[in-house]
């Protein structure tokens, strides 16, 4: 059983009463003394205020990337222990954000996963994403199977609206035209083996721009807000001046103990940011960084109510670099993986007073020679996607799936959600590997209905070792009514990233044997014994649509009606009248004069 949650510390500690439960006035003195002692203990013995049923962990991993960039991956966990996370529970929470708990319980949500990302994760250069996210916004949820199926859509719509309000994101644009229920690829991440996808809803908004208005409400969900602990580093100005950043919010049931027994409900908030190493080294003149150079300030201390607060620096790839130095020194943790590869981390335990003894602030600085070529292992799987074709009528989408593993085939699940106004033709679907057809072993295709639901295409592909597999599909662009176009219609519409899910060999740094002190990647499904499920997202695409002239409605209505009226009028004229003879001499002078002019020009006798 793999451990992916950090909670054992809590079960070891004594069930001391919480700081906030002091309300017995009769035993005032006794309690005051206890509080004092507790505070002392908190400060010096690393026993923070905690309750048995809720715990908070915070963690930051800093990792130099092979491209010279730097990854900072924050992770905040709030855990509530108990079987039933319901309305009653939601009313008595201390660490878990009330507002979120109420929303989740009232919508019968079993699992909720939100990501908001700006930029595209460059897999080959940066390795595996700690919490994979597509560009833009993504929301998916599993509902409790106690919810009647007929209510799932309604709850989903309402949940999207609530999340939109909670995170100031455009989740309110989620509707039936961009929601799907994927058959594979988005299985529950927590306890439970729910397979009935009628309780699953997935939507992605590729156009979403993530910025400080999303970060601020996201930070407010943390127990310490951004007043203390690692969250003090989350200053918008520095974070958003980066190459990539993503916010994640995940709610799921997890086993309470490492052996898989018991239930607890975990809210995980992640923030992943990649700082530009090249620009940074040019600006600072050295190939290194300090915490304050990254985030604008050093660390003051942990969040006082956290039961775990740790900072890791991944030195696996730079340990051997000439001129390597890390100051101040921390505990070094080494992990071995199945691929004869060792992973080394430097750990700073923020709850240990010794961390802050020498200096009041923790500001690790790291330096190494800029010439050092990092021999980092590149991910086995990499996916990318692009548009093909010219013009505004037909087009195609091509995905390239790179299997870099030298000798193992990979089985991957490729999921695509395309809006209805791209009329996808499934007969044009081709999968080729090295010029030869490589038919998918499973094709799940739900065609779109106009203005009702998107196309949903799921493929199960086998990628031979060390090959590139290309998936092509053709589409035709529809002309929409002039009110259906997004604002700035000539900019085009954004198409969601395709999702590739795969079981990857050896991509797990711990290979299933992580010790408690390892900064394990968040993204792993619990209660799963075979391999490590990895999810990759392609780029989003920008498709130009043919547009009508938006300034023309009146003219078009008038002109078309005129043509119809010409038809109606002339038929009316011919069908309702009959031919009569008339003496031309009785015509009035002007008419005859004009008629004669024309007749003279035509060369026929005058009248």
């Amino acid at each position, binding site marked *: 059983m793999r451990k992916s949650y950090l909670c054992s510390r809590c079960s070891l500690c004594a069930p001391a009463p919480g700081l906030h439960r002091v309300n017995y006035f009769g035993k005032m003195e006794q309690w005051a003394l206890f509080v004092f002692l507790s505070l002392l203990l908190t400060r010096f013995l690393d026993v923070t205020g905690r309750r048995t049923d809720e715990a908070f962990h915070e963690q930051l991993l800093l990792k130099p990337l092979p491209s010279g960039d730097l990854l900072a991956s924050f992770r905040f966990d709030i855990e509530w222990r108990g079987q039933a996370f319901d309305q009653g529970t939601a009313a008595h929470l201390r660490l878990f954000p009330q507002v979120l708990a109420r929303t989740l319980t009232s919508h019968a949500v079993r699992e909720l996963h939100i990501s908001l990302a700006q930029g595209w994760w460059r897999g080959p250069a940066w390795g595996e994403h700690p919490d994979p996210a597509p560009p833009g916004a993504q929301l998916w949820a599993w509902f409790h199977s106690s919810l009647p199926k007929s209510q799932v859509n309604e709850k989903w719509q309402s949940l999207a609206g609530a999340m939109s309000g909670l995170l100031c994101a455009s989740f309110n644009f989620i509707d039936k035209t961009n929601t799907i229920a994927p058959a594979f690829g988005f299985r529950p991440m927590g306890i439970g083996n729910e397979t009935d996808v009628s309780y699953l809803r997935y939507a992605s908004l590729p156009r979403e721009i993530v910025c400080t208005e999303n970060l601020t409400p996201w930070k407010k969900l943390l127990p310490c807000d951004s007043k203390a602990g690692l969250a003090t580093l989350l200053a918008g100005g520095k974070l958003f001046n980066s190459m990539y950043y993503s916010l994640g919010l995940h709610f799921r049931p997890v086993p309470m103990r490492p052996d898989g027994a018991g239930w607890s409900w975990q809210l995980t908030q992640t923030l992943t940011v990649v700082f530009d190493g090249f620009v940074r080294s040019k600006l600072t003149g050295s190939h290194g960084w300090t915490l304050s150079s990254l985030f604008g300030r050093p660390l003051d201390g942990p969040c006082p109510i956290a039961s775990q607060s740790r900072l890791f620096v991944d030195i696996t790839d730079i340990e051997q670099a000439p001129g390597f130095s890390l100051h101040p020194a921390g505990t070094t943790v080494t992990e071995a993986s199945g691929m004869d590869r060792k992973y080394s981390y430097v750990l700073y335990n923020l709850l240990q007073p010794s961390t802050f003894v020498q200096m009041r602030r923790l500001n690790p600085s790291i330096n190494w020679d800029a010439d050092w070529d990092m021999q980092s292992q590149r991910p086995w799987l990499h996916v990318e996607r692009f548009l093909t074709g*010219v*013009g*505004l*009528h*037909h087009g195609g989408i091509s995905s390239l799936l790179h299997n870099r593993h030298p000798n193992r085939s990979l089985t991957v699940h490729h999921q695509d959600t395309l809006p*209805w106004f791209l*009329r996808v*033709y*499934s*007969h044009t679907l081709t999968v080729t590997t090295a010029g030869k057809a490589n038919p998918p072993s499973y*094709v799940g*295709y*739900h*065609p*779109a*209905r*106009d*203005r009702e639901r998107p*196309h949903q295409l799921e493929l199960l592909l086998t990628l031979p070792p060390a090959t590139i597999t290309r998936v092509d599909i053709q589409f*035709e662009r*529809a*002309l*929409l*009514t*002039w*009110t259906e176009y997004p604002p700035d219609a000539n900019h085009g519409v954004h198409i969601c990233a395709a999702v590739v899910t795969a079981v990857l060999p050896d991509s797990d740094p711990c290979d299933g044997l992580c010790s408690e002190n390892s900064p394990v990647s968040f993204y792993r499904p619990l209660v799963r014994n075979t391999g490590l499920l990895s999810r990759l997202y392609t780029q989003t695409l920008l498709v130009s649509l*043919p*547009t*009508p*002239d938006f300034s*023309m*409605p009146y003219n*078009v*209505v008038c*002109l*078309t009606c005129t*043509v*119809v009226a*010409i*038809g*109606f009028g*002339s*038929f*009316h*004229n*011919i*069908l*309702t*009248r*009959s*031919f*009569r*003879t*008339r*003496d*031309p*001499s009785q015509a009035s002078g002007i008419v005859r004069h004009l008629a004669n002019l024309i007749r003279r020009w035509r060369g026929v*006798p005058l*009248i």
Partner: protein
Amino acid sequence: MDLWLLFLCALGVAVRAAIFYSPLSGAISERVELSTPQTAWRRVVEALTLLDLGVSPYEGDTFHETPMIIYIFHFLIDYSELVFTVVDITTTVILYLSAKKTALHLWEKQKSRKWSVDVSAILLRPKSLHWLPLHVAAAYLLNPLTIATCVARSTCALHNLLLALLMLATQNNSIILSAVFLALASYESLYPVVLLLPVILQLAQKEVKGKLTLRNPYLLCFILEYTVVFLGCLSVLLMLSYSLLYSSDFIPAVYGFILSVPDLTPNVGLFWYFFTEVFEHFRLFFICIFQLNAFIYTLPLIIVLSDHPQFLMFIQIALLAVFKSYPNLGDVAFYLALLPTWAHLNRYLRNSFLVLCLLLSCGVLFPILWHLWVFSGSANANFYYAATLAFSTAQILLISDYLYAFRRREFHLKHGIEIKTEDGRKMMVELK
């Protein structure tokens, strides 16, 4: 003369085969003027692929043809080029036979009438009638529009075949067959249902005793009889379609689609840009008006042309090609092929030069403006829309001109070619 037809068919096949195997065929099949959302071959292939994937072809919003098309091409998909060529040849032969009958009918009708004055200049001549069927066949088979429709594998070619069969069956006075083909044509593309009354009128001329007025009980009886047969055929077809896929999804996907016009892909008709641009709250109103417009002309036409059901049928088919919701050039090609039948009206056409110029310039402008809008981005939708407007106007002028010419000729047949006053001055003829 039959040898000529054989030669014509061989030529038609050769031209089609040459284009099918030339690089042009891909470009032609992508033309929106030929492949509407209803008739595009690409969508038929998609429907068959969906069936193979275990998804109903009507699950999505791509396929808007009837289950019969699925059934036919389920077996013949690999021979589609052959099928469409054979369909075109068959249509041509049927049009030829039908035109032969029509020519005979027109000749007999002319012979049976007594002329009070000298109208020999506008009378039909046996020689022209002799060549008429061949002209019709050539006008259909060698019309570039028909060839393009065939190469694009637009299912419109099949619709045209059914219409031709309907015309032949009606000419031959076979009530059951004409009801079957009318039901098939209506089942395929809905609009031919307006031909019900013209067909009844034509059949009634031979079948019903007495004058064709609504007071005639024989006529009423015949109308009822024919309608029942027609509806019976239609319901059998619908039931067969239901039993093919065990679902009635095709009814909204085919007929709902034709009537409510949800797909605004450009075509040569009047609907697409109008419903792209129209204000949302007027949409339903205008859809009703536009669809009504396609059906409304039948009654006045019947009243005015009750003695000339063949011409009535021609005008009605031509009007549908203009006013239907997803028209394409195949429909236009069909009624253009019937024009040689009415070549004796040419004397009274007023706008033939203008119409010819308009049609030719539209034929040139369609691809150019489409390219400018969709590929080079230097024009916008308005340009293509303008071309479709001009095209529709040209067709309306053409059809109304033929109607005018027909009525004018009838007038002159009755009153003489030149009508003079007592003092010998020429009188003007005008509509009043």
